[in-house]
Each structure stands twice: as C-alpha cells, then as structure tokens.
C-alpha cells in the first residue's frame, strides 16, 4: 500500500504517535492472549505508515481477533463472520485512497470465509490482511479450525481431529497471493517490521500471525516459539540474504534438486555459499511454497516476508478503465445515457 502523501502531510504524520490510534474502548481479550501484543505493534506502526489518520480503515469479521477494530482509533468496521474480505473489497474499490487493514482469524478466513479469502488474494486488491492463526475457534470457546493439526483434541474433536489442516501460505500462494509473511505474537519487533512491509506492498498482503490462545489452545505454537525451541526452530527469511538460523547461527537451508534440506555450516564442507539465498520476488511460486510449508521437527519455521511480487491491483485497473471510458465514451451524464441509442419523438 503506497499512498502518496504531500510533504507537508508527511510532516504532519511525523507528529502522530501510538496514542493517536488508541481508542477509548476497554480491551476485552483474555489476559495473556497474544492479541494484545499484536494490537500494540499495530498501533505503533500506524504513525509510520505514511498515511493520514482519517484514511486508515480497519475491518474484520467475527472472532476474538475480529474485535480488533474497536480498539484502534481509526475508521473501523466489525463485520459478520467470514466476510471481512468482501467488506474490505467494497471499501477499497470505493475509495482506493484509503489504507485498508483486514483483521481476521483462522476460522473467520479459512473456514466460513474461505471463499472470499482466496478471491481477494486472486484479485490482488491493495488490502493488508492480518490473519491471527491460533489454530482454534477462540470466541466460540474452543472448537477445532481448518488449521488445527490432525489428531488434536478440542471441544468438538474429543477423540482428535481427522482433517488435514491448511497451510496458510500454501493456500494463499495457490490462490495467486502476491505477498505472504509470517510473524509471531511474541516478537513485536518483527511483527512491526512485517506490518510496515505489508503496508508498503502494492496488492493484497497477507501476514499470518502465529497467535497464542491461552485459554483454548495454549502453547499450540510452542514447537517453534517457546524459549526452548525458538532459536533452533525459527528462521527469519530476509530478501537477498542466505538462509541461516540456529542458536549459533550455524544452520542453513539448501535445495537438493528435489526438496529443501537443513544443513550445518562447517559439516560436510558446507559453507554459506551453498545456502539458498532468499528471493521474495520470484514469480514462480514453487520455492515460496516449500519455504512456507517448512515446519518442525524436520525444518525450522520460516518467519518474515516469504513472498512479495509485483502485479497490478483490481482497483487500479478499474480506475484506469473508468478514466479511459470517460475519455472515450460519448455518454458523460445520465441524460446522455437516457437519450442514447434508438429514440423517437411524439
């Protein structure tokens, strides 16, 4: 989302602070819920997003995560379950000047909202989506979601689920997504960085935020986010940099012609040069899918911006088409239209 603002406006923006984006509503998430940290990171980056405060719109569906708009002092719309993407699309198309953020959950966007989710990505509207993936339906108190791991026991799967979960990144890229990033609710710095990059991206930006639901799915991401695991099981992908990770920064990712592999620098003669260098701009999606799908125990999980490619957006094409029609069509007003074609007088 790159919305040009005049210099004086930019100057104005600089004066904005987090407080300008804190609403007067009491935050009602459970104590310890990951949502709090996400909200705080978001409120912090807004002053830096290069946009007037009245030009920000925050939209959501229904879920714990979807209460988010109430807490951000911008224009906000708390929609109905699953329909945030459609709501956001209508807003963005109506007024492309607005910077639209869509807040959603794994239930809201991958269960009931799955169709709108894949279509907004395909249309590449310039909307920034933050999908809080806690792998559970929080608001309805703990049923499994489309991202819940197979076999997991929840309120609605007392004997464990029997479904294959979606990989959010893979689904999004399969739906023609141009931007996919992953962040963790416990790392505010990286969240902020990723949010800002999403804001800058022209087209639909999807951030999967691995969010902890302390009440109904506590520690579901612990295999790569806990103090014990995070160093060994998180890799921060940075564009143009080799894929290195590990407590001692001595592990790396290579591609063996068929699949990805974790290697140790120094072992078997492996050096940094053998490692994959991250290219978030590659059009062909294959590598991004492989990277997005990595997970413990065989791989680290990738965080950061995994994919960011340039492509036209729906609203810009539409506006261009309208402009060109305005120039070329003889019909400039409703009266022209009413009187166009075959008419006769009496």
């Amino acid at each position, binding site marked *: 989302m790159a919305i040009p603002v005049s210099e004086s406006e930019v100057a104005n923006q600089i004066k904005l602070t987090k407080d300008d984006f804190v*609403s007067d*509503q009491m935050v009602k998430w459970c104590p310890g819920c990951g949502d709090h940290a996400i909200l705080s990171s978001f409120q912090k980056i807004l002053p830096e997003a290069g946009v007037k*405060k*009245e*030009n920000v*719109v*925050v*939209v959501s569906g*229904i879920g714990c995560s979807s209460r988010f*708009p*109430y807490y951000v*002092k*911008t*224009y*906000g*719309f*708390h*929609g*109905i379950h699953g*329909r945030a*993407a*459609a*709501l*956001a*699309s*209508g*807003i963005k*198309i*109506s*007024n492309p*000047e*607005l910077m639209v953020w869509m807040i959603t959950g794994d239930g809201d966007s991958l269960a009931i909202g799955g*169709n*709108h989710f894949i*279509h907004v990505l395909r249309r590449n509207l310039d909307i920034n989506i933050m999908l809080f993936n806690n792998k559970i339906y929080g608001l309805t108190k703990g049923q499994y979601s489309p991202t819940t791991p197979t076999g997991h026991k929840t309120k609605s799967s007392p004997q464990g689920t029997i479904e294959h979960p979606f990989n959010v990144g893979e689904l999004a890229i399969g739906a023609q997504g141009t931007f996919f990033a992953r962040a963790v609710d416990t790392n505010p710095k990286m969240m902020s960085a990723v949010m800002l990059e999403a804001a800058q991206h022209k087209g639909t930006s999807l951030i999967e935020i691995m969010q902890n639901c302390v009440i109904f799915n506590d520690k579901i991401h612990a295999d790569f986010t806990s103090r014990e695991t995070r160093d060994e099981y998180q890799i921060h992908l940075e564009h143009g940099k080799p894929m290195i990770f590990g407590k001692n920064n001595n592990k790396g990712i290579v591609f063996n012609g068929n699949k990805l592999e974790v290697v140790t620098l120094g072992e078997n003669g492996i050096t940094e040069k053998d490692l994959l260098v991250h290219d978030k701009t590659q059009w062909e999606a294959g590598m991004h899918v492989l990277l997005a799908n990595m997970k413990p125990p065989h791989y680290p999980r990738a965080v950061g911006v995994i994919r960011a490619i340039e492509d036209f957006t729906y609203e810009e094409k*539409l506006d261009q*088409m*309208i402009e060109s*029609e*305005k120039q*070329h*069509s003889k*019909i*400039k*007003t*409703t*009266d022209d*239209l*009413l*009187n166009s*074609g*075959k*008419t*006769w*007088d*009496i």
Partner: protein
Amino acid sequence: MTSKEQKVVELEHVVVRFAGDSGDGMQLTGSLFSDAAAIAGNDFATFPDYPAEIRAPQGTVSGVSGFQIHFGQKEIHTSGDLADVLVAMNPAPLKKNLMWVKPSGTIIVDTDTFTEKALSKAGYDSNPLEDDSLKDYNLIKAPISTMTKTSVEDLGLDNKMILKSRNMFALGIMFFIFNRDFASADEFFEAKFKSNPLVVESNKKILRAGYNFADSVEALSRITYSVEPAELAKGKYRNITGNVATAWGFIAAAERSGRPLFLGSYPITPASEILQELSKHKSLGIKILQAEDEIAGIVSAVGASFAGSFAITTTSGPGLSLKSEAIGLAVMTELPIVIVDVQRAGPSTGMPTKSEQSDLLQALFGRNGEAPCIVIAASSSANCFYYAYEASKLAMEHMTPVILLTDGYLANGSEVFKIPQVAELAEINPPLAKPNDENYFPYRRDPERLNRFWAIPGTEGLRHRIGGLEKEDVYGNVSHDPLNHQLMCELRAEKVARVADYIKPQEIIGDESGDLLVVSWGGTYGVMIEAVQEMQQAGKKISLAHFHHINPLPKNTEEIFKRFKKIIVPELNLGQFVLYLRMQYQQFTFHQYNKVQGLPFMVQELVDKFNQLLPEED
C-alpha cells in the same frame, strides 16, 4: 405503401407472436417489428420467451424461442394475453404456441419446414397443415424458405446464409399486414452490415419479397390493418426492458445524490442483465465487483456504502436467500444499500426462466432477529426506472437497506418509455456528516426521519467504529444493556415505519368506493388494469389499488380498504401479500386468487374471477 386498392381495418390493439427455433432470429425479428411500431407512434410492450436451455436441440418443442409484441393506439400495459397473429417458422413453434393464439386468429407458417422428420421431432403424429386441426384459424401457408431463396437468387450468396434470413421474409409479411414502413428495418441493415453491402441488399430484398408475397396472397391482400398512433404525451421516447430501466434508475440516483455508484453482484437469471448493463457504463464512474458469490456481492456493497458509495446488489430469489444474513448487517449498521430481487419461480432452483411473485415474504421477514427493511416493488418494465430511483432515495435519505422487488416478466419484457430529464427527478439528499463536527456520534439521529448520519472514511474528525453487534444509542459503542437493546430495536422499526410519511399515498384507479377493490402489487399491474378497466367500461363498480410500497404500506391504505364491499388480492404465488395484509388489517376480509404456473395472469381469467365476487346483475 400499399400497392393496390384494398380494405384497411383499424384496430385498437394487436398481439403478434413470432416463434421459431433458437437459431431462427425471432428476437431480432420481434425487435425490428417493435421499431416499426415505435415509428408508427404506437404504444407497445414486448416479451421474449426464451427456451429454458441455452440451445435446446433444434426442432424440438423445448428449443422454441418466441417474441410477443402487443401494440396499439390505446395505452398498452402488458405484452398481451393471446396472439392475434402467430408466425411459426417450423412445426415445433406451432406446436408449442397454438394454445396462445386467439380463437380464429391468424397463423402464418413456413410450409417448407413441415417435413415428416421435423413433424415427428416436434411431436406431431399427423401434419397439422393437412389434417383438420387448424380449421378454426386463419391459416396462411407460405413456402417461406423457397421464396426467400428465390428472391435473392441473383446475388450469388450461399444457401445456408440465405436461409438465415428467412425471418426477414416473415417480417415482410407482417409489414404488409400492418402497413408498416421499411425505413427502420433498412436503417438497421445498413448499420449492422455496414462492411458487407451484399448482405444489406439481400436483407432488404428478402424483406420486400415477404411484403410482396403477402400482397399476392388472397387471404391477406384483401384486408390489411392499421393501428393508429397512440395518444402519448409529447416527448422523447424509447423502448426499454425492466432490467435496463432498473440499472438506469440507479445511475440517475447516483448522479442526483452525488454519491458514486457501486455494484457488488453475482450473475443469476433473470437479474444478470442489470450487472451487464451497468458494466457497460463505466464512463459514468460506476464501480463494479462481479463477486465470487451473492454474499460477497452484498457484503462488498455494505463495505462500499460505509466508504461513501451509493451501493447496490442485484440478484434473484436463491441469491436473496444467501444475502439474508448480510441484510441484517446493513440493518444494524444503518447503512444505505438497495437489494434488487428479480423474482423467478421457486422454491429452490425451481423454474429459473419463469416468473413469479413468491419472494415477498422472504423480503419482508427473511432475516434473523428484528430486522425491518423497506420493501418496494416495481410494476412495469418502464417504471423499474422510477422504483429503482425511489429505492435509492429512500435508502440514502433514511439510511437503511431497501429491497426492490421486480420479476422476470418486468425484467425481460420491454415497454415504451418516455425519457425523463434527470434534473426533474426528485432531489436526493443523503445525510452526510460534516468534517470535524464535534456533535457527530455514530448513532445520533435526525429527530424526524430517525436516520443516523453518514460519516465517510477519509473525512477529518469523524473516525468511528461500527459493526453487527448491538449498538449503544447515540454513541454506537457495543452494548449489551437490556433497555438499550429494546430501544434500538424499536428505533430501527420506527425509522422504517416513518418512511410512510415520505411516500405518496396509495393511488386508486377507478371510483373511490364500490363493490370490489382489486388489491395487487408488483409485476401484475398491466394485466390488472386491463381487466379492471374492461369491467369498469362494462359498468362494474370495481377499482384497483396496485401497491408499490409494501413496507411500510401507504398511510391511507386502511382508509381505501374501508370504502369497498369486497377486496380481492390476486397474486402469482400461493398468497403472500394477502397474508401480510391480513396481519396488518385484521378487520377486512381479503379474498384471494392465486396462480403459480410460471405464467402471467390472463385478462379474461381475472375478469371471470372478479365477476364472481360482484353482485349478480338482474
């Protein structure tokens, strides 16, 4: 134009039906005939009768495509009941349409097509041109195919191509019978085949060949008919279908309200043409999202409305079902949107190409919770323009969703439309909140209309948040307070009820009191008025109250009902408006007359039914 002396009979109004295979070009033939009627100054209405399949197998009854036109020197309200003249290009169209021809009506057939194979494909056991089955009709047997070929032999075109123009030969016959001018058809050929002068010539020749043929046939040449110009108000006119009129009504409303038009829609028969029509006019700044489904269609409209567009969504019955939940969201967020339901025959997928009035109760009640909506209905193809406009005005000025009901008949049918000037349409003043207005609160209301104010993202000083949870009065924060909930439910209901103060009183056609009041709504207006006027002319004390405003009902409704001895409510459903009237006005006895056949009412059946309720003559 007539080539020799002959009798010209003046007719008040005539119904003509063209029928052929899907590929026979009947829609074009019909529309050229309509153009000629327009030039002749007639009033008219038309209705296309497409097969349910895209291209059903040629030569079969299910593949027949028809076009009916009703034109006259009197005001025309419907595309007509039974046809005075049927043109049947093959056996199947004859088979399918015979029941729609008036007793002793004229039937023109292409005899060349009545081969054994074609007859059996059409389901005929014996040739109707040869057995006695058509003896009561004025049957004109014309070897149309042969003569078409002969007429342009000299041009050296290939046979297959020539035969495609058979329809122009038939049109020529009709031009002769009704004394029509070639000009409008010639103009069409010239424009359409600009790049191919040979085809222009061939079409012109074939048209004239048909004309001359008719002139030479005894059964035709002795009498032709004239239908004089209708007494229409001075002005500029055009022909318009209901779907186009609907689309244009919204365009006009957007212009008058100063709000950009947004459409979120998913195609569905018979509503798709509204989407298609609007998508042609991007030069007027219209923004469209052809959505992935009906839900995205309406929800994107709600989003667009929040963002300050005048937003609409268009669909038919099954789509309205899918939009139910989101209509509730618009009710709760008190944002203006218009939902168009072009009704078709249900339930479920039903008979998608047939028309019906059976979505009324869904429009009124098909939402969870107490979710009142304004519901209005258009009553003619042309007035779809005005009711689309009215729906837009009510939605924006009262800040609430409006459901506009039309139906397959109105949508696909066409009528003569007097072109209005946009500046003369009623003003539309959306209640926009002012930048930095310190008294702005999301749910503060106008004391009269009870609408809240429209604060558009991007406006300085009005940042606010809304949504589907219950709202605190004035402030709009989420509230679970019991008394607030009751208050808000009542306010939303009252806001819609008060719309009654802003709409025209119910009109009554005929005397203000009498023996029988016909109460109808929506797409049946044309046939109602024809039936009622016929009976009024016969001296019956019958009047018509045809409703456009359904929720709320006009304030004088009860007053009107009181003044009649009996009330009958005819509908193309099993009785929905009548149920609604019963709940509103328990004091009256409402008779009902219902038809659910995917067919319109016929004037005669209404007259018969109404007569049963009238006092016996002595």
